[in-house]
């Protein structure tokens, strides 16, 4: 005589460890760094990972990729003040940083083939809290190695790349940026120990202070500001 047992509730299944929920798997890193953007924090369950490599793909530079990182870099600087910048595509200017961060930023100019070596030294030293790295291409093996070293040294690496067809890279977080009229669209297509997210648009702050008044455009009027010659300007 077999007795038909009553169907178990979901809670009971979970207690018996027959149902496993991915989001609270325990594998998820507990430590997070608030990104400074509410929407992004919500999407990432708290913020950027505390350590590891965050891969940021963008079609071109200058879409607000650094503005996305600055709040996190500022809060990371409170843990370990030294931060490093590697492989800048142009002259990096200190203007967006806080004075304390200007003081403790290392700018590293390395030849292309020495960049990964320099990055590994930065990580192995364990004295940088974050490294921003403009990559010119990385192989899966290099990415794996980088990820392991970054986790071990508790350093957060932001790797910014111009988008290219890429095979899967074993990194903490991968996202693609797309600039839109209304802000920056983030497509987080790979997260470690969590599901990818559907793309969403982040309202980025403007690169200039809000206190500045927008010039008012006159409908149909001559809105061109003429540039005065030196002779016109009486000194």
């Amino acid at each position, binding site marked *: 005589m077999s007795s038909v047992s009553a169907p178990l509730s979901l809670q009971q299944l979970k207690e018996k460890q027959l149902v496993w929920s991915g989001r609270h798997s325990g594998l998820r890193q507990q430590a997070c760094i608030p990104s400074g953007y509410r929407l992004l924090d919500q999407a990432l369950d708290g913020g950027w990972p505390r350590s590891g490599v965050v891969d940021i793909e963008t079609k071109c530079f*200058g879409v607000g990729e650094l503005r996305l990182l600055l709040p996190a870099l500022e809060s990371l600087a409170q843990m370990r003040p030294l931060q490093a910048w590697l492989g800048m595509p142009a002259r990096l200017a200190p203007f967006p940083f806080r004075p304390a961060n*200007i003081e403790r930023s290392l700018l590293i100019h390395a030849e292309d083939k020495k960049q990964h070596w320099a990055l590994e030294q930065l990580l192995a030293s364990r004295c940088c809290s974050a490294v921003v790295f403009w990559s010119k291409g990385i192989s899966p093996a290099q990415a794996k190695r980088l990820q392991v070293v970054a986790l071990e040294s508790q350093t957060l690496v932001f790797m910014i790349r111009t988008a290219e067809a890429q095979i899967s890279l074993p990194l903490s977080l991968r996202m693609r940026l797309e600039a839109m009229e209304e802000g920056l669209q983030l497509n987080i297509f790979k997260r470690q120990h969590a599901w990818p997210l559907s793309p969403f648009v982040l309202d980025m702050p403007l690169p200039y202070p809000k206190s500045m008044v927008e010039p008012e455009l006159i409908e149909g009027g001559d809105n061109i500001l003429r540039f005065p010659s030196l002779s016109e300007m009486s000194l």
Partner: protein
Amino acid sequence: MLWLALTFPQLQLDSLAAVEEAKEGSIARVIIDKQQKIIQKNVLAADSGIQAGMKLGTAAALADPLTVHVYEESFELQRLQELAQACYEHSADIALISSDTLVFEVSSMLQLYGDFPTYWQALSEVIASQSLTVQGAIAPSVLAAREIARSTGPNSNMTSQFEGRDSWLSALKRLSIAQLDIPFATQKQLEHLGLKRVEQLHELCQHTQARKELGVRLGRELLLYLDRLFGEVAYPLNYFRPPEQFTCSILLDHEIQSSVSLLFPLKRLLQALQTYLQSRTKRVQKLCLSLQQRDGREQRVDSSSAEPLRDSQSWLSLMQLRLERVELEAPVLGLRLEASDLLEETQQTQDLFEPVAGLAPEQLVSRLQAGLGESSVRRFQVQEDHRPEYAFSEQCALKQAEKPNVCDCSLSVRPSLFLDSPQPLLENIQLIHGPERIQSAWWTDQVICRDYFVARNLDQQTLWVFRDEQQQWYVHGLFA
């Protein structure tokens, strides 16, 4: 005061033999002077019948094969300096008085060591490690100690010498005049006067009149020498002071062609450096490595660290990075490591609660500089200039900031990435903010008069563009 004189009669021979016999096995070996007379010989040469003072031709007939070296006084002086350096750990006042003799001031050291055997034990261990023939004597006069030491047999029992120190005068008196360090002509003159032994000289010097006569006939130098010999007048000494500069060299027994294989001998040099620095509680920030090539030329490799270091391991890892970037001009036969500018040790406190132990930022910077080059690691320097491209610069990460890096940029619009030079604007843009007029530096040649705008192009990049006086448009930066 009591002086211990240690004479090394075969200093050059012993030093050369120690290096070369390890490779070639022992053969008869002699050192000749400028007149081609034998002045130093090893045991094998002596067994063949070679004696000091022999002509080279005679010696060559007696021993075959025979290795001949020419005497070099500078080499012996250099070796004596090294010996004094090694002994300096155990004895305070050391002086070089000739190319073969070191004198040690004993009486003050006895207070430290308690008794002579303990002191001699410490010294003799150092000397034995160099495998040198040594002759010693103790006397209250520096010159007497040296002359007795030169006349005694090798490796004599120093403790019994010390116990018999009061009979130094009689030991001195037993010497013949030929054993004194006086010019050959004077020796001959003394001989013609019928003086052969030091005893006779000593007696003469007791009589004021005879002493005066001696001075008139043979010169005041002899009188001064005798006064110093008998301890009437102190002998002026320049005490050895350890050099404020570390130099150590190594000769390789084969040529090294790749810079990476230099690390092994380099490790030994760095070990020596560490010992040197430890005994002085100093650190160094800069090392200079000379790679010696076969034709006598040298290739220099400088290495510096962001913070003063002592530990040989830390230096080795820095040098390793540095050497990886070096291309050897020619095969290397020897290495010389030099370090000047010794810095005081500063106590560094380690944060007890620092969770992740890592390198100090200065160490990181020196590693990166060693691997990438001095100028590759930089940091910001903010300048007071209205022209945006001159408002900041980069400088070497190690330099102290000339002025505080304060920039209040919150009120102005500045991009985070600047193009190296403004590029002509070649695409359609939409202005979203501006203008901001920057007109400055009219007192220089680089006048700028620009209207800056924030703009967005079709790729949705945020650009910093400007229009100059000629109504030309340029892109100057990116808001990343």
